[in-house]
């Protein structure tokens, strides 16, 4: 008897990065979305590093110039270089989106947890308030809030705040529903029986399992915040001095840009916003596919 030594096939466990890249190859929506977002970030960072940011404000360059080598996106009626205005506008849109998105998600997670985990009167109250506020068109309500502010006080931070005021109900209800199902799972019962406290269960048992839902709620919230702040700005309720994308469209509309043949003026911010919102929508769909295998089936 001679022992035969079988050659052990070497198992190569691909690194996490390779696995992630392989997944991206299958999930096209997520890949394209992330790619567009990356391009926008590169454009903004490059612009912030190289351009003279003063040119994003009125009377800094020659006005009403069509796109040329000197001004790649043209200049507007008030003498702003639209390329620099896009760079600054994208940066400010990102600040509003991320700030309002993070705040809205945070409020949603906290209220959703309180409501679902502790139940009782608090749950009834939080759920009731959410349900009553949901049918109220938040986009129009924020017109009143922003319209009541003194125009000189409006900054991109107050805009983010105004947007959040009526945008926390969605994430609250989503997180609440998830915590409710999670609360009944066995691993939570086991944790409870082994004497873990409420905070311990919330932070070390439920929260980690909720992360995909929180991430999805966050992307959703950023999408909504970018859109809602754009909505305010396009109605002329934004910080009028800042070259926010919506402000630029509002200003172009006020000067009848299309009638006057200044077509490049409203076009640049519109395309920029389509790219931002489109990439966020694609990422959102891609994340859905990641979290919900049933959707994955048809691919």
């Amino acid at each position, binding site marked *: 008897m001679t022992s035969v030594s079988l050659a052990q096939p070497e198992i190569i466990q691909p690194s996490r990065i390779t696995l992630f890249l392989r997944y991206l190859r299958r999930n096209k929506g997520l890949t394209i979305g992330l790619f567009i977002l990356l391009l926008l970030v590169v454009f903004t960072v490059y612009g912030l590093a190289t351009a003279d940011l003063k040119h994003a404000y009125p009377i800094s360059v020659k006005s009403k110039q069509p796109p040329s080598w000197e001004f790649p996106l043209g200049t507007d009626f008030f003498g702003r270089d639209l390329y620099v205005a896009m760079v600054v506008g994208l940066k400010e849109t990102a600040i509003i989106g991320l700030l309002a998105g993070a705040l809205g998600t945070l409020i949603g997670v906290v209220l959703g947890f309180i409501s679902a985990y502790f139940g009782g009167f608090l749950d009834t109250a939080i759920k009731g308030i959410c349900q009553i506020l949901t049918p*109220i068109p938040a986009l129009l309500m924020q017109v009143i809030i922003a319209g009541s502010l003194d125009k000189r006080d409006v900054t991109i931070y107050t805009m983010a705040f105004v947007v959040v005021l009526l945008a926390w109900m969605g994430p609250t209800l989503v997180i609440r529903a998830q915590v409710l199902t999670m609360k009944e799972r066995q691993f939570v019962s086991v944790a409870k029986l082994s004497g873990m406290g409420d905070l311990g269960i919330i932070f070390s048992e439920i929260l980690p399992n909720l992360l995909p839902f929180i991430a999805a709620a966050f992307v959703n919230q950023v999408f909504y915040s970018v859109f809602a702040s754009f909505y305010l700005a396009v109605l*002329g309720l934004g910080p009028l001095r800042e070259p926010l994308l919506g402000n630029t469209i509002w200003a172009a509309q006020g000067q009848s840009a299309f009638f006057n043949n200044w077509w490049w003026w409203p076009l640049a911010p519109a395309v920029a916003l389509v790219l931002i919102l489109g990439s966020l*929508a694609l990422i959102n769909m891609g994340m859905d596919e990641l979290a919900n295998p049933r959707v994955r089936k048809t691919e």
Partner: protein
Amino acid sequence: MIKLITRRLLFLVMVIWAASTIVFFIPRISTKNPVRERFAELARAGGFAPADMEKIIASYSTKFGLDKPLWQQYTDYMASIARFDLGVSYNKYPKTVIGLIMDSLPWTIVLLLVTTVLSFVIGNLLGAVAAWPRAPQWVRTIATPFILLQGVPPVLMGVLLLFFIAFKLKMAPLGGAYSTGVIPNWSSPAFVWDVVWHQILPGLALLLGTVGGWTLSMRGMGITIQGEDYVNFAEHKGLGPYTIFRDYYLRNALLPQATGLALALGSVVSSAIVIESQFGLPGLGRVLDAAIRSNDFMVIYGVVLFVTIAVATLMVVMEFVYPLLDPRIRNE
């Protein structure tokens, strides 16, 4: 059934109450006095002496009840809302807010009704077909770009259509309700056609901006439903693919979409308002836009409150339509 109706009506009252309370308190938290703001604007344009201004502001404050205690202002305000009295416009003084709204409302309703119905039907059909494995490949290929459209809100669609179709191709007017220089005359077919012609582009913007959302959610619903046992059962019974598609698949997938329609109303109306101001149509959007540009607060509050109440009411009404679509609820 009676119990359900009372519950829904109570809910409606709560929503209207919450909306009016927000509209009442937010302007009062801010330091802006609408009357003062209006006169400050006139004073900047030149004309009023400051001493007179204070006197006029004081008399206006008495007239609009701004000198009464807050609780009394609140009850007065709620009573006036119950009477559909939304105040008067500062900018077009003798005109009431409700009058301004009523003048512009038909334009908005027609635009909204046509585009919403078209968008709901087209979007749902496309979504259902996109998720249906036996649909011809070319139909499924058509549906995909529509899903991508949901990243483009109607407001941006308006700018893009204005540029490509009206500006570059000159295939549609750049804005306005009818051609400049035309005298409105609803009995002449040429004028009616002119109006319709001016509505096509804004309608298209609203349609293309909303259809992607329906396609996407319907596709999601469709994928869930085709795994259900009753669909498999219908297949094994030997029913034709069209019957399965219409009676087993579409019918069930449509139910949640009808709820979605109620929920989407608020954002569709909000988009329509900006599109109207973009295209210079004489609807609610232009009233709101003009009011914002001229600090006409009563009109801003009035329009927003009116739309809010209308949307909330429609949502509750649609919940009553829901049992007609779903026999399971009807029989309870």
